[in-house]
């Protein structure tokens, strides 16, 4: 059906083009209205009260590194040892693909 449509359209345009006037005034109006209303109301009240008292008397109190992750020991459980701060910035050369 589309094969016949295009030659016919071209023929029509050709015929129109041969006319000196074109009084055709096509008009196309479409109206669409959609309305959607969703109303949702949720109410939740959770009340939780936990009271816990733990007394850890071991020398490493507060240093349960096994429970909190890889670098916890280094960051929190190693005081002492005559450490000194380094004031330089961390180099970015590795992130820069070895560009200084």
């Amino acid at each position, binding site marked *: 059906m589309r094969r016949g449509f295009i030659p016919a359209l071209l023929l029509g345009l050709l015929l129109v083009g041969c006319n000196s006037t074109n009084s055709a005034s096509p008009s196309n109006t479409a109206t669409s209205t959609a309305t959607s209303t969703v109303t949702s109301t949720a109410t939740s009240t959770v009340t939780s009260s936990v009271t816990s008292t733990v007394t850890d008397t071991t020398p490493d109190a507060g240093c349960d590194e096994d429970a909190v992750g890889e670098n916890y020991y*280094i*960051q929190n459980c190693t005081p002492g040892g005559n450490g000194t701060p380094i004031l330089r910035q961390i180099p970015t050369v590795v992130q820069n693909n070895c560009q200084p």
Partner: protein
Amino acid sequence: MKLPKTLGIVGTVVGAAAAMLVSPDPVFAQGGIPNCADLENPIYMTGTTAVTPVVQLFGARLKNVHLTLLWNSLRDGCGSVGDFLSTAIDTSTVPVYSYYQESTDATGKVVALQCNAARGKKADLVINDVGYSSCNSGAAGTLPATAAEFPGPVQGAVPIVPSSFFANNDVMAEELQAMYICGSIANILGLNPIYDYSGTTSGLRELFARDIGLPGSASINSGLGTDLKADSIVGQVSTGTTSFGYTSTEFYDQFRDRVNALKVRGVGQKLAYWPDSDKTNTDKINIREGRYTLQGTLRLVTKVDGNGVPTNPTVKNIIDWFQQNPVDPSLQLPFDITEIYAKGGVVPRCAMKVTNDGDKAVFKHFYPAQPCHCAFQVLATGKTSIPGCVPCGGGAGAVDSGVTAVAGTCATNQICSHGYCEQP
């Protein structure tokens, strides 16, 4: 009193070889170098060069109890384990091993000698810096069921600069990453050239890479690898003015007059630390308590039976001695290996307060059953009076610490261990 123990060791360890107690002179091969097999009760060991100072001291002491510890470290830690596990037999060369004995003069120095092993002779025991699964060599992976790794003492990896270099005395793990990934182009602290070990056979390189926060040595610039050893890298660094490398605590302690150690701020740390409490001390306190992050447990690798027991009984004894396990009285050494470790630059597990799983610098608490914190501190520093250390003697499980133990009373929550009151 020591002599009967010595005889007991030999009689038990070598069994039928007791007739060799009075050792004949070695039969010398061509060139004046004896055949290793002709030496008194030889045990063939190989592995990382890093631990050679400990092996030398231990070998010289064992020689006094009629065992000859033979040592060859030409193939590094990982390479040696690979050779040990391989079914291939290399008969192309004559393996040369070193063995050690104390000098007969009053210096007490260790004399190194050499012998020729039989072609294709494999080692009985290998010492590696890391677990074999961390090695970068082609065959690395899990050990077969016929071999096992036993944890030994703990060593540190030490970034070193020439003793004349004073521009900085510390370095960050991130700076070490930049230096060993990018090389001298990173221009960290003006240090150049940068020295490194073999990319495929070195165990120390694997330990270093993981401890500075890299997945493994495969991340390191292969162009830096010049196949140096832990001792020769000290020589290379010491002869420059801005040169840089890393060695083991064992060799750093031997050459503190030639190189300086840089303090290390590990990944996630706030401060930088030396392995020891200060530059002149040898107490390894920051290794023992987990502040110095460039550290790892040495692995002892050997063949085992279906129960995981070393198949070579002499190797089993050596591993028990290395691990300070309780042994039959007839096998009790007439010296304390804690002293060997303290003088050799490593830390026995009984003096450690932290441990880690695998070879990464992620630590957790460690409580040895028979602690030797005080004994190690005394032996490593030479200080006989350590605050908080009370000498004791005769307690259950007490081991001769090599220092004078006097009678004492330990607190109720303590035990007498290695000659001092310790909290287990």
